[in-house]
């Protein structure tokens, strides 16, 4: 049964190839089905592998399946091989499941698009790359998947490439990712220099090869990679821009899967993270700060997808914070729950805008609950889940994270708690603006846009929404604190052995924290309800500083953008034209000029040639004379 695992990335790859070769011929009607079936097949294989893994005793759940040797270079043997252990199977399971749901949704959402087939081609390729990333048994193959998802993200964000803003956003996403990739490369170099091999199992067996300083540098390099991929400070600006892509893309890539790759990498290298306490502190600080900053930015957005984008950054900050506090299982738990409810929220936002012919400004929505009951229902589930209202999934998962942080870094716990309050606040604001209040969509817009007619989403879009709603609500069941025999923690603990917090201690403390979490969540909802009920905009609640993203983009533009452009211009005009072209042309003109000077010897005068001959003869004789004397 376990041998099925190696075929998991193969199914979406096959889908990609089939659509690439025959997509046009198959036609729009069947391409979407082919793509969805491919991803669903890999989900089935994931489930099969999971049952196979369960059949092995928990201490030995670490199987490597090698396909072939890719880079045999002396002592470094890099294979294309998959590591099947609880962590990778967990990731595969929820990745494939959510991908299947989103593929199904896209069949309805992308109907009528000109590039329908291309969309599914990219989506399948993305799932392949993500599976390779998650299942790889060595850092190089992880990097391959890492780059693959980055490339697919670029293609999908710039899907409407004729729009200037979409193309720019695609480039921005890719460049920021690339900056983070430097971190992963540095980490690989450090590991190879110390350990000599890039396989995870070998690395973890040779942890003593890292001195404390090396371990800190390695972890910081990994953190750089994670901030690039998972949109943390200082590389988070790309995620709001990537909302230019179609909504399923935002749901899949920028909520559920690609952005979790950074967290996954850190969890996979958890043994190394344990070696450096300073680096873990840095990780936690970055996570907490990002969560807070992004939550403040989300509180003032007017675009329905932008709120969710900043919310994603904020929730990823929570996950990174958990990793920094050493609570890897909590991070994975939150990742799974977040995948469900964030995908749900994105897809329902997509249903809203699809129903309003593409309108995304919340100022033009309102009272949609009367026209789109199903969408409203699932949105409420997602809203309450993310706010952390018990007994929905985020209450348990975010609660686990906050518990762990409380134990390690109390100050960061306070910050994270305030961020939870803000989370409830901005989600409630989003709900009231969109679904309650007066209907603003059937009046002409502020800039003369015509009135819109709202309609509910078709069934092919509603089914995934409902399934995800069930998941968002019930994902908390995966890791209830009082259930010890089965659950995510038991499943994952062998992977992180020794690094877990112990949830069995201090039950009263746990109850106290749980009550605090619930109060914060409800309080946030209440405050937002009171402030935003019936209102469309409130200037004092939306200060400029926040709407301009704390001027972060402007900061980067001034520090990096303008000097970079100036340097590029200087290089293009001065260095390229004058120095390089001058050197190359100079060689040519040197040849020409020296030839012109040398040709003056050929005067055509016989007597001068005779003179030269005589001169040569005289020189020869003098030379011989020198030798003789």
């Amino acid at each position: 049964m376990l041998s099925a695992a190696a075929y998991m990335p193969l199914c979406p790859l096959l889908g990609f190839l089939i659509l690439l070769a025959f997509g046009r011929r198959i036609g729009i009607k069947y391409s979407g089905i082919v793509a969805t079936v491919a991803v669903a097949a890999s989900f089935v294989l994931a489930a099969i592998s999971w049952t196979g893994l369960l059949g092995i005793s928990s201490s030995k759940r670490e199987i490597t399946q090698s396909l072939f040797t890719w880079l045999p270079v002396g002592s470094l043997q890099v294979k294309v091989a998959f590591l099947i252990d609880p962590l990778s199977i967990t990731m595969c399971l929820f990745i494939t499941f959510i991908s299947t749901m989103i593929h199904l949704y896209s069949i309805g959402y992308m109907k009528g698009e000109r590039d329908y087939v291309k969309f599914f081609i990219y989506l399948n390729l993305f799932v392949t790359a993500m599976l390779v990333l998650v299942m790889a048994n060595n850092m190089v193959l992880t990097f391959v998947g890492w780059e693959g998802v980055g490339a697919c993200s670029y293609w999908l964000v710039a899907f409407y490439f004729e729009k200037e803003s979409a193309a720019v956003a695609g480039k921005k996403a890719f460049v920021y990712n690339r900056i983070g990739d430097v971190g992963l490369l540095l980490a690989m170099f450090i590991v190879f220099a110390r350990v000599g091999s890039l396989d995870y199992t070998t690395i973890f067996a040779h942890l003593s090869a890292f001195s404390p300083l090396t371990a800190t540098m390695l972890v910081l390099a990994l953190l750089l990679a994670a901030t690039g991929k998972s949109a943390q400070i200082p590389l988070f600006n790309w995620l709001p821009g990537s909302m230019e892509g179609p909504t399923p893309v935002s749901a899949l890539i920028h909520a559920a899967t690609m952005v979790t790759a950074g967290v996954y990498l850190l969890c996979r290298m958890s043994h190394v993270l344990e070696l450096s306490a300073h680096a873990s502190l840095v990780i936690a600080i970055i996570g907490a700060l990002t969560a807070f900053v992004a939550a403040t930015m989300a509180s003032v957005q007017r675009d329905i997808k932008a709120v969710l984008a900043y919310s994603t950054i904020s929730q990823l900050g929570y996950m990174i914070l958990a990793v920094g506090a050493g609570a890897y299982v909590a991070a994975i738990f939150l990742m799974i729950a977040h995948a469900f409810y964030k995908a749900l929220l994105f897809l329902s936002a997509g249903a809203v805008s699809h129903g309003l012919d593409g309108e995304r400004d919340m100022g033009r929505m309102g009272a949609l609950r009367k026209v789109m009951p199903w969408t409203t229902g699932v949105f409420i589930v997602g809203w309450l889940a993310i706010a952390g209202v018990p007994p929905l999934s985020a209450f348990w998962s975010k609660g686990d994270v906050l518990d762990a942080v409380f134990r390690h870094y109390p100050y960061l716990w306070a910050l994270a708690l305030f961020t939870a309050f803000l989370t409830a606040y901005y989600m409630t604001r989003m709900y009231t603006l969109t679904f309650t209040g007066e209907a603003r969509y059937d009046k002409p817009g502020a800039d003369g846009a015509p009135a819109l007619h709202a309609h509910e989403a078709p069934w092919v879009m509603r089914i995934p929404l409902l399934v995800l709603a069930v998941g968002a609500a019930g994902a908390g069941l995966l890791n209830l604190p009082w259930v010890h025999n089965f659950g995510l923690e038991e499943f994952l603990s062998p992977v992180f052995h020794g690094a877990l917090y112990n949830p069995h201690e201090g039950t009263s403390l746990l109850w106290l924290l749980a009550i605090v979490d619930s109060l914060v969540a409800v309080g946030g909802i209440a405050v937002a309800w009171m402030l935003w009920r019936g209102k469309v905009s409130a200037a004092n609640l939306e200060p400029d500083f926040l709407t301009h993203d704390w001027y972060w983009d402007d900061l980067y533009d001034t520090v990096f953008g303008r000097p970079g452009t100036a340097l590029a211009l200087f290089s293009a005009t001065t260095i390229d034209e004058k120095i390089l072209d001058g050197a190359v042309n100079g060689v040519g003109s040197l040849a020409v000029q020296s030839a012109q000077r040398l040709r003056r010897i050929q005067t055509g005068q016989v007597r001068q040639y005779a003179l030269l001959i005589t001169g040569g003869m005289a020189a020869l004789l003098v030379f011989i004379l020198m030798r003789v004397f």
Partner: protein
Amino acid sequence: MSIPSSWYLILAALLFGIGALGVLIRRNVLIMFMCIELMLNAATLTFVTFSRTLNDIGGQADVFFILVVAAAEVVVGLGIVVAIFRRRSTADADEISSMEG
């Protein structure tokens, strides 16, 4: 038999030098040719001197062949001069300089 061969050799060197000087200085093609003949004669004088010194008839045989070749060379050379003169009506070596760079 009794004159030291060094005298002959010095004489031949002087003759050679005068011939070389003539080639370099005179502009008339025919006179340049005659100076080349002077140089050849200097060589033949040297050959004969060494033939006597080394008691070897090969030196004189070489002179024999030098004579033949010099004659042939003069024939062809003068033919070329005639051909050039027909085209350009000049016998000045400085004027025939079209093969220049």
